[in-house]
Each structure stands twice: as structure tokens, then as C-alpha cells.
């Protein structure tokens, strides 16, 4: 059995335990949030009998342990219950809203890695000179302001004053694209509609930049700090003494060891964007899961809260596993230590 496979098995086992723990925690917390879900679901004009009847139907009068038992039994059957917010099965809501958020987060993640790492390398290579100062100031700015502030600033600059980008939604109203994956950049291509594909990309620009800016700054700063530390290592001095080109030293000898500590943080940032996307989704009217999550919390929609949190937790775990595997792949010492400990 390969060491990477052993790491995968161990992480999967831990993930199952974490998921169970998260489900228990959120199940309890969701019931502590003020507000009677039956009263909220039935609306302000419902009478006491109707509320009592729905409470019974939702098992809200039973002990919390029994309620959790019903929940687990339903989940085992693939049933997350009915959303009181949308009056639809929670699974249907998640299937509809999750791809929108994932598409946004994936594009933001690509920007985070695609811009953050090169900027960090650039700053480290030119430490103490103007490119370094520029990157440090710029990234400090992006890290300091939350994504919703960037969302509003970007909207003002590039949609209101300079109407270059669309401001709301995922696709121009006039396009009708059959839903296959829920990822519009994919579905438009599957439909063979290139102009719709360009339109979907166009809609992604501002929200994904707003969401990614903080992560770009963090990735750049981390990469810079790690690379500067690596540049002080004797083997780099040796490479320099051998007269290797600076680009080769940066790419082959300094970047890879510097990347490993950054990867964990970048992975966590990537997963955290799922939850943090709420305000960006709100500003750009992006019909995603984060916005849905906040809406269901405000309405104390218990089934939808559980479904949303579990999906986000699951995404965190999957990203963590992928990052662990990637680190193990990049760093032989981790592979070997795993083999030794097993």
C-alpha cells in the first residue's frame, strides 16, 4: 500500500468523525438560535394550533437526542428534509445553489493562486527594491479590506462609473442555457454557445476578483516570506555561487520548498471562501449557497441550515485532504515519515 494511499485512508477516517461532530454541534446550535422555526415557517398570521401542529410534525417537541436520531435516519436515506424558506427539498436547493458558489470560488481560487504566488515570488526575488515595496503595500491593502468592501468598490469603479462589467447575476437575461452541471461556464460550452460562455466569464470577473483579493494578498505575502527564508539557506548560496540564473534558482530551488508551508494556508483560504462568499454574492446578486445559507439562518430553517453547513464542512474536508495529498506528493519527508510511523 503506497504511503499516499495510507494518508488518504487516514484522512478519510478522520473526516467522517469530523463530519459527525460538526453535524451534532450545528444541530444543537441551530436549535439554540432564538426564534421558533414553526412560527417563522407558518408566517406572522398563524395561530397557536397551527404552530403546535407543525412543531409536532417537525418533532420539535421531542428531546433533542430523538430529533438528532430522526435527522441521521433521514440523512442515511439521502433526505435532508424540506426547506421552510423555499418550500423545496433541501437537496434540490443545494443542487441548484452550490454550483454557482463553487464556480465563483473556483475562479477566485484560480486568481488567488495565479496572481498571489507569482506576486510573492516577484517580491522575494526583488527583496528591498521597488517591486517588493509595491507588492507589499498592494497586498497589505487587499488583506486589510474585507471582500464586500472590494465588491462595492469594484462595482462603483467598473460598473457604475466605467460600465465595463455586468453587476448582477450569472448570465445576461436573454440567454437560455440548459442546465447540465450548474456551472455556467461549462454548460454554455456544452450547449455550444460561445457567446454565452464569454458572457458567463464576463459576469464572473468582478465577483471573483472581489472574493479573491484578500486571498491573493495573503498568498503573496506568505510566499514572499517563505521564499525569503529559503533564499537565506546555504544551498541557495551554493547555487548562486555556481552562477545559476536567478530565474532558475527561484523556480527550481527556492519556490518548491517555500510553497509547501503556504499550501496549507492557501487550501484553507480556498475552502473559507465558500462561507465568506456571502457578502460578495449579496452585492452581485449571485444566486449561490452562501447567500442561501445566511437567508436560512435568519429564518431559522433548521433543515436547510444543517444541509448547508454539512456541504460547506464537507468541502473544507475535501480541500484539506487534497492539500495534504499534494503536500505529501511534493514533500518526500512527509511520505517517508508516514511510512515509518505506520
Amino acid at each position, binding site marked *: 500500500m503506497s504511503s499516499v494511499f495510507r494518508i488518504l485512508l487516514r484522512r478519510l477516517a478522520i473526516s467522517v468523525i469530523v463530519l459527525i461532530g460538526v453535524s451534532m454541534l450545528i444541530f444543537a446550535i441551530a436549535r439554540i438560535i*432564538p*426564534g*421558533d422555526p414553526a*412560527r*417563522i415557517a*407558518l*408566517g*406572522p*398570521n*398563524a*395561530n397557536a394550533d*397551527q404552530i403546535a401542529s407543525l412543531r409536532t410534525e417537525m418533532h420539535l417537541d421531542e428531546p433533542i437526542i430523538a430529533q438528532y436520531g430522526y435527522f441521521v435516519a433521514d440523512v442515511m436515506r439521502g433526505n435532508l428534509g424540506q426547506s421552510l*424558506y*423555499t*418550500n*423545496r427539498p433541501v437537496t434540490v436547493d443545494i443542487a*441548484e*445553489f452550490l454550483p454557482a458558489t463553487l464556480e465563483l470560488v473556483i475562479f477566485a481560487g484560480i486568481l488567488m493562486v495565479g496572481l498571489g504566488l507569482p506576486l510573492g515570488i516577484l517580491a522575494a526575488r526583488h527583496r528591498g527594491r521597488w517591486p517588493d515595496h509595491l507588492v507589499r503595500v498592494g497586498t497589505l491593502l487587499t488583506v486589510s479590506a474585507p471582500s464586500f468592501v472590494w465588491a*462595492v468598490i469594484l*462595482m*462603483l469603479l*467598473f*460598473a*457604475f462609473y466605467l*460600465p*465595463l*462589467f*455586468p*453587476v*448582477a*447575476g450569472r448570465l*445576461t*437575461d*436573454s*440567454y437560455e442555457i440548459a442546465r447540465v452541471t450548474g456551472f455556467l461556464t461549462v454548460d454554455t460550452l456544452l450547449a455550444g454557445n*460561445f*457567446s454565452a460562455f*464569454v*458572457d458567463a*466569464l*464576463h459576469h464572473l*470577473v468582478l465577483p471573483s476578483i472581489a472574493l479573491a483579493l484578500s486571498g491573493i494578498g495573503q498568498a503573496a505575502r506568505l510566499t514572499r516570506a517563505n521564499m525569503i527564508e529559503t533564499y537565506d539557506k546555504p544551498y541557495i548560496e551554493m547555487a548562486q555561487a555556481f552562477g545559476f540564473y536567478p530565474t532558475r534558482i527561484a523556480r527550481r530551488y527556492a519556490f518548491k520548498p517555500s510553497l509547501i508551508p503556504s499550501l496549507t494556508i492557501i487550501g484553507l483560504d480556498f475552502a473559507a471562501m465558500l462561507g465568506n462568499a456571502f457578502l460578495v454574492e*449579496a*452585492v*452581485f*446578486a449571485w*444566486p449561490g449557497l452562501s*447567500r*442561501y445559507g445566511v*437567508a436560512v439562518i*435568519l*429564518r*431559522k430553517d433548521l433543515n436547510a441550515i444543517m444541509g448547508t453547513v454539512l456541504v460547506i464542512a464537507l468541502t473544507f474536508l475535501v480541500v484539506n485532504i487534497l492539500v495534504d495529498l499534494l503536500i505529501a506528493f511534493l514533500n518526500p519527508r512527509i511520505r517517508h515519515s508516514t511510512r515509518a510511523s505506520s
Partner: protein
Amino acid sequence: MNKSLILAAALTAATALTSPAFAQTVLRVDEVAVGELDPAKASDYADSILMFNVYDTLVLPRQGGPGYDPHLAGSWEADGANYTFTLRDDVTFQSGNPLRAADVVYSLERMQEIGQGLSHLFTGVTAEAVDEHTVRFTLDEPYAPFVASLVRLPIVDQVLVAENATEDDPWAEGYLSGNAAGSGAYTVTSHNPQDVTVMALNEGYFLPINDAAPDQVRLRYSLEAATVRTLLSQGEHDIASQWLPPEVIRALAADGAQLFTESGTGAFYVKMNTQRAPLDDVNCRLALSHAFDYGTALQMVAINEEVSSGSAPTGAIPVGMYGSNPAEMALERDMDAARAYLEACPYDPADFNLEISWIAEVPLEERFALLMQANFAELGISSSIETLPWALFTERVASPENTPHISQIFVNAVTGDPDTLLFGMYHSSTPGTWQSPEYLADDQVDAALEAGRRGPGEEDREAAYAALNERLMELAPTIYGYDRQSVFAASDRVNAPALSDPAMAFGVDGMGFSFRLMEMTE
């Protein structure tokens, strides 16, 4: 950096070159809440917009004046507690099924059984199909505004709904939460409760439709104020919701947006908990009522010199409704009277601290909370401000001990009749709801409310509500903040006579958004 700009420019150019032209007129509007498509559950503004366009009702409020006109009904007769309606025989549902009396009976029973939305309007009502096109309603007791309440009974296609019912879902709630089963002027093309509901013109509608009416309507949900402003400025939106902050509406108007209005059925009420000291004393309540700065409150909701989200209050009943005072009797701040009432109050202001709550989802209320805090401080009354999310508020008001001293609520008459505005707020049989955090229990108030319901004539009702108004001014369970008017910023692509011409206005919130009556100018 250069590459990013080039990429952005390329994307913009590519999109501009490849965007297809609209083949039909599209109207884009927005609302803050999720739209409830099931007509039996409709209650708020977004739901009403959907309901009034996708479904039809037996009667409609008369445009520009009091009274009700036949709609799906050709005519009706009232005989005490019995109402007999003869249906039009030229109406078909969007499915193609013809309208029958059985559909009306089914719609009523479905609403009553589901028990949500505005089903309480039909408590004690039964219906029977006398023949294919005649339906008779029987009321347990006389209810003068019954015909008015029928504007909230959307008629569903029984055959279609029954086809989609299951053993677990006998009323097809799942189906109707995402699909339409009405006869309205617009059909539902798609419904995403968090994003947008798309409606298309129903070519087979039984009434003539204006040629310039929008072919498609996109009702968007929960757009941020900044987003709406940008969309309108880009020409990508047509009518903004009424819930924009006044300063945003003001900015839009300054940018050239036209302002639509809908008024006359509601007010902003500052509710005082009459079961908690010191507000269990009428003099103390009157002191607060007189200390409230009505003029500043109105300035806070003014859009410009001509248009405002509010007009001066004259009492418990908005101007124009049965029993209301004339507009000249506007309430004004009177600090001398306030101090005199406070003198007569048995409580010492130094001994209490008022809880002033505001609903977290309505930021405007925070400003009123601050205004009241400043106003009451001038009387030497200290207060603290508490933010309550709507869900928590509805739970808190379920018991008088937990109900804040002061709550702020916008209430409107859902049928246009004062009964649906006032009974739920002030009758002693309905305490502890979001409408009635006053916990008022007064025999004279109850008697006037019951007389207003009973009628039978318009003069009887006018007298009953006038007496009610007078009594409510004496008791002061509420500070009557201002008579409310909804203001909508709109692009110049659309004309909406029901929202701009008082002679064409309906007296029911949301009905001004009857899209079949709107005109697209481009």
C-alpha cells in the same frame, strides 16, 4: 496589469459583439423577500405581486375609488351572510382547463386547510358550487368586508392541482411552490426563490391586454441597494423595490429616475406595550405620543419636495379610510402637553428605562429609534435601543413580559378594508402577534371593531371606525408615526398608470404591479 485590462476590454468587446438582441419587451423589477408562488401562502408584497399577476380573483378593487368590480365573477348578490357569485363563462386557466365553480370551492378549501398566508380572512366561511358557474359562500356571522377579502382568494385550477397532488402532499404544495395553476395574465416560466421569477405574457388571457404590456417580466429577489442603483444607472433594471433607503431613492431621482407611488392602505405604527410599567398608564403613553417629533419623522422619509414615503398622520386610521380624520388634523409635536401628561403619570421618569426596539431587517427603524430616544430624553426619560431580527421579534411579542416597551411596525390593510388593518392590531382577542404588541384590551375598542365588521351599511361602518379612531386617540396605545406611501424608483422605459395616476390606482398593496396594465416604451 496591462494584460488584465486587455483581457477585460476583450471580454467586454466580445460580449457586446455576441449579445443577442431582445426579441420581446422585458420588464425587470425587484423585491427584497423571496417570492412565495403558492397563492394559498401569499402574504407579503413580493407574494402579492406574483399572486395578482399569475392568478385572478372573483373581484378587483375599483381603480381610483372605493368599491369592488367583478373580475372572474360576472356579478354577485349578497343576502345577509350568503353571497352568490355567477362566474364568467369565457375564462380558461393557463392549462386550458375552463374555470368552474368547483375551482372556487377548491381554492377556498385548499387555503383553509393549508392555514398559512392570509387564510385567517376566510375563517368561518364555507363555499358550495350551486352549478357549473355559480358559487355560494356562507358566512358563520355577518362580515361586511367579505367582498373586499375576496381580493385575497386567488382561484387555482383544481384539475391541474389535483393531478399533481400525492398522498403525502394532498394539496400539491410542492408543485405550486414552483409552478403556476392560475388564469392570470402572466404564466411562470421559471422560479428560483433566491434569484428570480420569470413570467411570460399569457396570450390566452380572458381580458384584452395592452399591446405595450411587457412580454416578459423578471422579478428579482434580494438585491442590495448599491446593486439596484448601479443596475438602474446601466439601464438594466426598470422598477426598484420600495425598500430602498430614502437617500438611495433620492439619488436615483436626481439621476433622472421617475418615482412611482402606491398609497392609502397602511401606516407606520410605534407600538407601546400597555401591559408593562410605565406604559400601562395612559398618561405616560400620552406623554410619549405628544413628545414624538412627527415633523422630523416625515423629513426622514421625504424623497424630494414633491414625493415622500409618508404623509402627516391624523390618528390611528390612515387618511382616506373609513373613520379617518381629515388631512388638516395632522398630529404635531406638543412638548407642553407631553410634560403635563407626564406630571399626571404615577411613575417617576427617573425610575425606568424604556426599551425601544427596531427590526434588524428594516434599517430605517433604527433612525426612528434614535429619534425617539432623543425626543423622550427631553422629557427626562431614559431609554435603550434594542435590535431584534424579525424572527426573534415575533417570538418575543408572544408574551407581554417579553415584549419590548416600544416596537416599530409597518402595517397595511391587505384587502384595502380597514378591518384588515385594525382588527388584528387592536381587538382583545388577537393579542401578542407582530401586529399587536400593545396587548390592548378595551371594551369600547372591541365593540367598535365588531361594529365595523358587522356593518351592514357604509354609514354604519364609517361611524364605527370614527368612534374607534377617537377611542384609540384617547387610549394612545400607539404613536401613529405617519401614513405610509410606497415609493418606487423607475427607469423611463416603463409607464405604470396604476402607480402614477391616482385615478387608476387600486386600493390594495401590490396590485399596482399588475403588469398587464403597464406599458413598455422601448
